[in-house]
């Protein structure tokens, strides 16, 4: 399946991935409007971690055996057996944070305004992962792993 892979040796902690992820999940899809009018309502689904000089971006790894799907009690989280993509349906999510409790990468955030979980959806709506497209240093790349 397709996976976004973070190359920590080239991540430079700019956090533009977070910025563009947020925009990609905004209503307006406009940088300035998304931040001015929607920040707080929406959260980036990618988190850049830093320790000294090292940094890397974490978002959902679309696990082979996703702990979040096992824990999700509403069925909002599911794994597509064909593509391997783990998707989240906010319509069915009640914000019980069971997924937050078990995701080993901490990739699921609480979208507090909607009171639903928020995680990387590979930018379903726009089709291209915004973080990958906007990482200035190609520290995020899409890799196809075939198993």
């Amino acid at each position, binding site marked *: 399946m397709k996976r976004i892979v973070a190359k920590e040796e080239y991540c430079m*902690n*700019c956090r533009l991935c977070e*910025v563009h992820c947020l925009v990609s999940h905004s209503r307006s899809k406009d*940088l*300035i409007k998304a931040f001015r009018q929607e920040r707080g309502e929406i959260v980036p689904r990618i988190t850049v971690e830093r320790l000294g*000089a090292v940094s890397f971006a974490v978002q959902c790894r679309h696990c082979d055996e996703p702990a979040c799907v096992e824990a999700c009690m509403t069925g909002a989280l599911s794994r597509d057996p064909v593509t391997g993509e783990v998707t989240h349906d906010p319509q069915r999510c009640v914000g019980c944070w069971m997924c937050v409790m078990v995701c080993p990468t901490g990739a699921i955030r609480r979208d507090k305004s909607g009171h639903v979980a928020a995680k990387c959806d590979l930018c379903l709506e726009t089709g291209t992962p915004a973080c990958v497209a906007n990482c200035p*240093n190609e520290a995020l790349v899409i890799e196809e792993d075939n198993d």
Partner: protein
Amino acid sequence: MSKRLVQAEFNVERDPERCIQCQVCVRQCSNQVHAYDEEAEQVTCDEASCVGCQRCATLCPTGAITIKKAPPDFAPDNNWTSDVIQNIYRQAETGGVLLSAMGNDTAKTSWWDNILLNASQVTNPSIDPLREPMELTTFLGAKPNAVELSFDDQGGPSLATKLAPQLVLSTPIMFSAMSYGAISYNAFESLARAAGQYGTFANSGEGGLHKDFWPHGPNMIVQVASGRFGVDIDYLKVAAAVEIKIGQGAKPGIGGHLPGEKVDERISQTRMIPVGSDAISPAPHHDIYSIEDLRQLIYSLKEATRYQKPISVKIAAVHNVAAIASGIVRAGADIVAIDGYKGGTGAAPTMIRNNVGIPIEFALAAVDDRLRQEGIRNQASVVACGGFRSSADVVKAIALGADAVYIGTAALVALGCHLCQKCYTGKCNWGIATQDPYLTRRLNPDIGARRLVNLLRGWSHEIKEMMGGMGINAIESLRGNREHLRGVGLSDRELSILGIKAAGE
């Protein structure tokens, strides 16, 4: 503490209508110009330390930042310009030597701009490089005075003359010496990879060759400089050619100094010096005080490399460059590299960078002439360097007599360098001239190598176009072909040294 008189060199303007407080600028400026005020929930800035590298402006996702040169508005004066005054303030405050990096930036003519190229009209046809073969392959190394053939029983010919070792370049452009230490590991890797991918050569500089880069050896020229950093038999063996570095265009006559802070584990391995110790290159090679001494070193290196690798000697373009070059060729060098006064550096005293040495255009013309006059032009290839900015500069240099050129600054610019000229601070925001691990990761060698290869491809293409226009289909036919050059705005004396006619002649 007394009040500092030096004023900010740049204005950092942030458009409040655009800024989204994302703090990308805060995280990207290594000079701590931007900061985030938690209380005010706003990005603030302190312009005093801005070096104008444009990193923040480039990465700001909303384009909110504009960096503008801020010449402090002292009373207008053609002699006592703001740069001059600020420099004096600086020295009055520190008592130190003014430092600079990259090439001479004073507003002197680049003579390349006064030289124009020819093109075919009516009497001889031009060539379309997209339809017809166009040869840029360049061989560097000594060429025989004559070739002898021998014939076997059936009368089949073969070459009897033993040829000297050659470097084969797919285009007459190489990357000039930039040591790992002066530039980052990733910058070095980008250059080495691009050289390999495009079929040309990168130069290790005087800092040695880290084992990681040994696989790039077939596309590396390694230097032996006054500090002898990283030199051992394996170093000589992995390389394609060896270059003795006598001088550098940016700072002829003086040595180099890599401060101990930059000597980390990897650099220490590469230079073969202890971690944290200063790497000092003496001004002269202490074993070279004459052409005879140089000959000894050249032949030692030839011996060590079993006469299988060309030996190059690199000098700065200085007043007697022609005579010196002649001596170098007679001493047995296969390649003479001449670095003009606009050559770049990672650190040089400003006064030396801006005032010592001569332009590459004159040096090259003089050297080529002299070697021809002495009938030894074939004994060595001539590589010109120092401030080549475009393919047109390259074509002009080759027509003036160079076999190939080295590009340094242009290559770094391709990697993202914005010429802030502050390499010596070690805080290069573009991850090029720094060893700070927070900064070096900004240069992904995948991207770096790709950009360099693109640059080489673009320039090579343009070179072919220009050659085609002149009706020439092989770079060999352009070499030293000064008939294709004309000067504008040059004095008779300049024209005669350059050996070219004036436009209209």
